[in-house]
C-alpha cells in the first residue's frame, strides 16, 4: 500500500512528530475505505452482465465519441428489442442548422378535448399506469376570470367540451430560452440543444428532481415506478434524447417530439389536434406560421414575469 499523496493537514505542520503518526493512521483508514469501496464496486460490476457494466460506465451523451454513440445505440436497441419483443430504432439526429423551434397555441380555438394528451403519450412512450405520466396538462378556465392557473381545473370531465363559459389552456414544456431547470441540474443531465429543445439524458439523470422544483410550468415528470409501457403500444421510432423507453427514477419531459421534428415532421400533438389550434415551426424562418402568428396575432407568454423566455406562444387567432 502506498502512502496517501494528499498534503499533510494543518495540525501536521504545527507539531510534526505527533500529528504525522495521526495523519498516517487517518490516511490508512481513508485509503482502506477507498480501496474497500472500489473493491465492492468492482465486485458489483464483476457480477454484472457486460451490457449492464457498459451502461453503468457510460459517459455523458455529449461527451461520447461517434464510435461510442454507435455502441450505445446498438446496446439500447438490443435491450429494447429484448424487453419489448420487437425491433427499436434509437435515433441520434443532431439539430438542423439555422433552426430554433417555436410553438404557438390558439386559445380561441382549443376545445379541451385532450386528443393531444393521449397522442403525446402514445408517440413518446410515456408510462400508462402506476403512475401514468402525461407531458401535456389541459387546464379548464373560466372565461370571466381569464388565464388564472390557480383557479383552473385539470380534472374536468363533462360529456362534451367546450363547456359553456369556459376556455382551455394546454400546458407543456415551454422550451424556455432561459430554462431554470437545466441550471439547477447537479450532474448536467439536462440541457438546451442548439435548436432550442431542452432534453434529458436519461442514462445520466440521477433522479434528484431538482429540475422539477425549478420548473414553473410543472412540465417535468418523474418515473416513480418502473414505467408501464405495453409492448404492443410501444413506438419503435425513437430518439436517444426523446421518446426512447425510460427507466425508473429518471425525469422526462416534452421534447417537441424531437424524433419527429428533427426529420422535418410536425409534433404528434400538432398532427392530432382536431381544431388546428397547435402551430409549430422555425422561429428563424420569416415564412413560418409561428413567425406569422408572433408578428400578426395577440400573443402572450405564460408566466412571462419569471424571465424564462418560453418558445411556446399562446395566441388568439380570432
Amino acid at each position, binding site marked *: 500500500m502506498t502512502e496517501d499523496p494528499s498534503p499533510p493537514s494543518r495540525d501536521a505542520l504545527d507539531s510534526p512528530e505527533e500529528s504525522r503518526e495521526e495523519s498516517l493512521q487517518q490516511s490508512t483508514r481513508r485509503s482502506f475505505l477507498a480501496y474497500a469501496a472500489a473493491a465492492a464496486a468492482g465486485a458489483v460490476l464483476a457480477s454484472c452482465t457486460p451490457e449492464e457494466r457498459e451502461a453503468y460506465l457510460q459517459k455523458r451523451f455529449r461527451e461520447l465519441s461517434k464510435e461510442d454513440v454507435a455502441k450505445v445505440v446498438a446496446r439500447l436497441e438490443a435491450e429494447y428489442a429484448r424487453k419489448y419483443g420487437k425491433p427499436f430504432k434509437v435515433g441520434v439526429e443532431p439539430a*438542423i442548422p439555422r*433552426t430554433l423551434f417555436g410553438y404557438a397555441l*390558439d386559445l380561441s380555438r382549443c*376545445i*379541451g*378535448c*385532450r*386528443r393531444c*394528451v*393521449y397522442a403525446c403519450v402514445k408517440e413518446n412512450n410515456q408510462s400508462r*399506469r*402506476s*403512475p*401514468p405520466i*402525461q407531458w401535456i*396538462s389541459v387546464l379548464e378556465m373560466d372565461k370571466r376570470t381569464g388565464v388564472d392557473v390557480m383557479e383552473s381545473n*385539470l*380534472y*374536468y*370531465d*363533462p*360529456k*362534451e*367540451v*367546450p363547456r359553456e363559459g369556459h376556455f382551455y389552456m394546454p400546458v407543456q414544456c415551454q422550451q424556455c430560452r432561459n430554462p431554470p431547470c437545466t441550471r439547477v441540474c447537479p450532474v448536467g443531465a439536462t440541457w438546451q440543444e442548439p435548436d432550442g429543445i431542452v432534453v434529458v439524458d436519461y442514462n445520466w439523470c440521477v433522479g434528484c428532481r431538482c429540475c422539477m422544483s425549478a420548473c414553473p410550468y410543472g412540465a417535468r415528470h418523474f418515473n416513480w*415506478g418502473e414505467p408501464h409501457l405495453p409492448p404492443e403500444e410501444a413506438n419503435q421510432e425513437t430518439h436517444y434524447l426523446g421518446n426512447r423507453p425510460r427507466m425508473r427514477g429518471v425525469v422526462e419531459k416534452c421534447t417537441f417530439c424531437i424524433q419527429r*421534428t428533427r426529420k*422535418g*415532421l*410536425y409534433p404528434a400533438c*400538432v*398532427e392530432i*389536434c*382536431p*381544431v*388546428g389550434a397547435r*402551430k*409549430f*415551426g*422555425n422561429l428563424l*424562418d420569416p415564412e*413560418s*406560421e409561428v413567425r*406569422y*402568428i408572433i408578428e400578426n*396575432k395577440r400573443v402572450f407568454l405564460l408566466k412571462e414575469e419569471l424571465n424564462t423566455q418560453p418558445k411556446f406562444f399562446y395566441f388568439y*387567432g380570432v
Partner: protein
Amino acid sequence: MKTIAQSWILLALAGGAGCGVAPQQAPLPGQTPEAVAAATVPGAPSAPKADEYPVPPPPFSEGIYPCSFCHDMLDPNPTPRVLNNHDAEQPLRHGPGRWCYDCHNPKPMDVLRLANGTTIPFSESYRLCGQCHGDKYRDWKVGVHGKRTGSWNGKKEYRLCVNCHNPHAPHFKPLRPLPPPVRPAEIHE
C-alpha cells in the same frame, strides 16, 4: 354594347345575391364539371396555382353527390322554400338568409359558383368560403387558421374548410373529451 355589359353586370349581381339564375354556362356534350369550372369570368380573381394549397378530397355526402344525378332533370328554382329531402339530411344553419344558389351553381350543379359568376370545382371551395370569411381565408393560406399537417420545413397538407366545418351547419360540433388525468390521491400502486 353598353346594354349588354349592363345586363351582364345585373345578372352577375343577381347571381351573387342568390336570387337569380347565373350566367348560363351550359356544358357542351361530353364536357366535365372541371372544364366548366375552368371557364372564368373576365376580371375574376385568378385561380390558385396548381398544388399551391394541397387539400384532401371534399367530403361528399353519399347519395347526394353528384347533384346532377337529379338536378340535370330539374329546372333551377331560385325561390327560398322548404326542401323536404335536403332539409332532412342537410338542414341549412349557415347564418341568416342563405340559399342554395349563394354557393352552388344552378346548372350544371356539380360545381360551385363565386359571387362574380366564376364557377369553381368543389376541390377549390375555400375560394368560395373566403368571399365572406376573408380574415379566416387569409389566415388559412398561411397555415394559421385550421389544421395543416405534413412537414414544418417542407410540403404541407391543408384541409378544405369543409373537411372540418359542415358547410350547411358550420359551427364546430362539441366533442367528448378523453379521460382526465389520475389524481395523485388515487394512485395506489
